[in-house]
């Protein structure tokens, strides 16, 4: 784990800079996905969540659900292409878990489409890649006023 600008990022996963989602590869060409800590924090207090049903085929950039916070609503954009094979019922029942611990509380697991494995190449991992990207992003959200002082 590393800390960048006050945020903890786990190093056992990849991060998609386009969607601010993390991707953790699992056995059997599967990937678990969740919100990175900046996405979680700048959404505000999450009050409701919807996720697609297992079996849903999603392409990279398509929604796997919607997140509703106190003053914000937005789609949960899949960073990968595949078939959703598991949904985290715990976060559906208690959406605030996404604010409390976004690294542990995943959203869905996707069986990756082998023909689109190249999507993973654009993701970032390791301290050397994560630090410059995440530092800039924190500054950007801070400038927008989305981060508390």
């Amino acid at each position, binding site marked *: 784990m590393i800390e960048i600008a*006050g945020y*903890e990022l786990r190093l056992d996963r990849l991060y998609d800079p386009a969607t601010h989602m993390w991707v953790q590869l699992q056995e059997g060409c599967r990937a678990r996905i969740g919100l990175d*800590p900046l996405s979680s924090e*700048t959404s505000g207090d999450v009050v409701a969540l919807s996720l697609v049903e297992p079996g849903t085929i999603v392409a990279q950039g398509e929604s796997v659900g919607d997140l509703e916070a*106190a*003053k*914000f609503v937005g789609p949960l954009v899949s960073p990968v292409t595949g078939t959703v094979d598991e949904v985290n019922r715990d976060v559906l029942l208690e959406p605030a878990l996404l604010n409390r611990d976004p690294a542990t509380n995943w959203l869905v697991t996707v069986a990756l489409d082998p023909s689109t494995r190249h999507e993973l190449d654009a993701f970032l991992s390791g301290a050397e890649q994560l630090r410059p990207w995440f530092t800039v992003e924190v500054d950007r959200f801070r400038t927008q006023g*989305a981060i*508390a*002082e």
Partner: protein
Amino acid sequence: MTTTLPMADATPAVRQDSPDWVRISYASAIALRFRSGRFSREFKFGGINLLLSYDSGCLSDCGYCGLARNRPGEYDDKSFIRVEWPLVRTDEFIDRLVRYEDRLTRLCISMVTHGRAYPDTLELTERITSKVRAPLSLLVAPPTLNEERLRSLKAAGADMIGIGMDAVTEDLFASLRTNVPQGGLKWDQYWETVAFARDIYGPWHVNCHTLVGLGENDAQLMDIFGRLLNREVFSYLFCFNPEPDSRLGDRPKTPIERWRRIQLAKFLLEERGLDPAAFRFDDDGMLSRIRAPRALIDEVVADGYAFMTNGCPSSGGEPGCTRPMGSWRPTESPRDYPWRPTAEDQAAVREQLDLEALIEPGPGPTRPAHLCAPPAAGRFAPNPEV
């Protein structure tokens, strides 16, 4: 994330009451960076709302209110207008008002019914207006006030007074606010406060909150709009949105079609001077027709202001208190727009209004312009969003 915020302790050893502590709306908490978060849509927001806070809570028991005395739960855990109102230290709050002053459009202190509400509101008004130039409104609790106190609040720097009438008929007011377990609020006292405030603060410096969806009909709403208009008092429209666990928690939210029609009719009456006889009601008192030139209606819909939040103005005369998502969830179509409606918004509004069924040809405005509610500065400028 381990940022330490100057906010209330989870388990305070001492009371965190006003005037040393205040609650602020969630949107205000984001704007002043007490809380992280974003709005679904980017727009300029500077209408800061604060609420007095006491360990013993509000002593009223209004059937629809999240702060009602008999609503289940500890006062600290109660929501107001359905969302949490973070508790913040007043000193830090005022420091942040100063720091972000360039983006503030309007400030408002909401009183609650409590023995300390008046002295604390007076102190907060003095402390805020001595440091910040943004105009300050007070949403007052009539049981705590009299004429002299209203004068003192004006002398302290408040420029507008709001009265939360909410229920628009005496019977409805009594059923929701007077004849309830810990009620006792008095319709006549509320109107007396309106009269005192109107005398002291002057025309168009007083407003009454009117809630759509508590059980009134449209004719009753239009009647109160007209009476307030004649007294040069603003009526600010609010959409009923059930507060979970309140006595009206199971009452359905006002349908958006009805809400839009009321927004349009109110605007036509108040700001475009349409004669009250132009509004036709069915046997249940619900608005069925508006007789008006179609060009007038199209202009009002395109202008967009009729569908924006009713709130006190900024010092420049634009809408200052915009309460984003105060009566709608981020997933819903906005009830009152905190921004100037875009072309997409307008299309939705038109569909919700069903103008073909609502409008029939009729005469134009009859009320002289100088007797209409004053349009805010710049209101007749072309809508830049369209």
